[in-house]
């Protein structure tokens, strides 16, 4: 079966005056439907650069990137925007919700830019459905500042899912969250992955990476290891364990 994401000798070089910075120096990677991949690496390892390329926010300067069989290099800015709209969903570290805009309207946002246009009622229905998937149907008319960090990130996930993308891309999704909320968000990811949604997640936390099925470790612009997660964590169990530990501290 054709992979959803296929990088062939992918390179990304930034030019800063006469100085060339090789952020990614030849990565070949295939991600298939239904996978849950954690990309790890220290800052400067090239993982964010690679995520930007996978997210069609940026184009390779060398090699090829095929998203769902389409060579991104041949596309213009509008085509890329269209791909992001239809095939990709983004979850960011800082949530990136529009403030003073309700959760529901935040989730509707991608559909504003869909072509053909989605009728207003359909937008609402799908946004509510997406909020239900992340367990926030009852918070639809709350504003971001009325929601906790974990809830905001779940709204962001709902927004990423609302156009039924082929891939969910998460850039340090738990970076701003405490342990407990992080595990809850991973629980949402695992549940979505179990429903067949492909997830690529950048993280620098090993604990979090272990919720994925596969980890890719990058260093100096190259992939160092690419392996199956052997001791995979499951969110419900991790949560129970955490609760037990916290209780123990209390008891002690």
């Amino acid at each position, binding site marked *: 079966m054709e992979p959803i994401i296929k990088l062939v000798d992918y390179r990304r070089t930034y030019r800063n005056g006469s100085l060339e910075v090789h952020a990614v120096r030849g990565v070949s990677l295939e991600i298939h439907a239904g996978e849950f991949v954690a990309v790890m690496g220290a800052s400067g390892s090239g993982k964010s650069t690679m995520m*930007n390329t996978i*997210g069609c*926010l*940026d184009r390779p300067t060398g090699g090829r990137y095929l998203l769902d069989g389409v060579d991104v290099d041949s596309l213009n*800015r*509008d085509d890329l*925007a*269209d791909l*992001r*709209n*239809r095939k990709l969903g*983004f979850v*960011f570290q800082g949530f*990136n*919700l*529009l403030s*003073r*805009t309700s959760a529901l309207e935040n989730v509707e*946002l*991608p559909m*504003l*830019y*869909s072509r053909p246009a989605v009728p*207003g009622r359909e937008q609402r229905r799908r946004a509510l459905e997406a909020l239900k998937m992340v367990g926030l149907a009852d918070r639809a008319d709350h504003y971001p500042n009325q929601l906790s960090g974990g809830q905001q990130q779940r709204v962001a996930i709902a*927004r990423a899912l609302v*156009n039924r993308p082929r891939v969910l891309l998460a850039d340090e999704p738990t970076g701003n969250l405490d342990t407990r909320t992080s595990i809850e968000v991973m629980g949402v990811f695992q549940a979505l992955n179990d429903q067949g949604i492909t997830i690529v997640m950048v993280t620098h936390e090993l604990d979090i990476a272990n919720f994925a099925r596969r980890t890719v470790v990058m260093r100096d612009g190259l992939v160092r290891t690419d392996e199956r997660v052997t001791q995979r964590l499951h969110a419900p169990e991790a949560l129970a364990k955490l609760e037990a530990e916290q209780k123990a501290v209390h008891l002690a």
Partner: protein
Amino acid sequence: MLATLKTALRAIRRNILRSFLTMLGIIVGISAVIVGVSMGTGAKAEVDKQIASMGNNLLIVFSGNMSRGGVRGGFGMQPNLTERDYEALRREVPGIVGVSPEVRATAQVAVGNQNTSVGIWGVSADFAEIRSWKFQSGENFTDADVRSANKVCLIGKTTAATLFGEGVDPVGQIIRIKNAPFTVVGWLAAKGANAFGQDQDDVILMPYTSAMKRLTGDTKFRAFSIAAESAVAIPEATNQIAAVLRQLHQITPDKEDDFSIRSQQEMSDFANANNRVMTVLIGAFAGISLVVGGIGIMNIMLVSVTERTREIGIRLAVGARARDVLRQFLIEAVLLSVVGGALGIAAGYWLAPMLTKFAGFPTLISSTSVLLAFSVSAVIGVVFGFFPALKAANLDPIDALRYE
């Protein structure tokens, strides 16, 4: 589209004070346009009314050539129009319905112990009809009065009020003009000021024969008032009058006329020339203030784009195309300027009558000027909003998302 409009409204509401201050430039500019144009239109309407009060399809023949360079004689410095000219015009020019000569004098007029100095016009019996004078009471003098130079006269409203008191009917009374007794046969209805601000009602009309014989001793006329039968007949009548007068005055083809013919239209154009200068001047000020207002909008839109860089990044990331972002910010700028324009129009509607009330300027707000002002404000939004919107649309999504 509706969602974009909603977003724009929300962005404007979020910073309501800032939005209002931004709009202020447009509000001032547009209200200046409305008020300025209303002053121009109002003044023109006033002038047109005054010119129309002079009569219908009126032609005036002045003695002396007024279009020649150098000294301009004004209302005929050396009267050179004669009784013979008058008879010939009456007889020979087709397409005219009335002719009246004009002699003028200023004389002391007295009734009892009241007296005043009044402009006296010696005219024919056609004159009242030609110049659209209506009668409050009494009636016009007759051709017979003219032939026998009878001591009869028509009296204007202001003069009558001075001599007899406000609202007292003077018909049948005797007034003394240069000590000669004249009988008032008609009381003229009010006309108001003319295009040059003179009170047309401070006047006494009498047969030109009486005026020449008893007051001035002149034998020539300073002007003729002529009514053409219709507006279409004016050009032909003008040519005919000129031909008749040239022949009678024995002017060879290589010489210039020793008279001038003015139509009502020309007089109205002349009177309106000043108004046009004023309108252009106010228009220029309004234009400058609109440009300043537009720059204000551009400035605030640039600030807005910078402030909302992250929002733009989010929108781009979820699939907004450059043109979607462009449109969003353009609509916001247009909304700002159009709302400003609407407020400016409202302010103009409020200010124009104030101006009339407190400064006495005639004003008239035309729907054309409102439409024009509104379109101009929309155009300003597009023109001055375009650069900031383009800046927003060309942001790189990655940089925009990372912007703090």
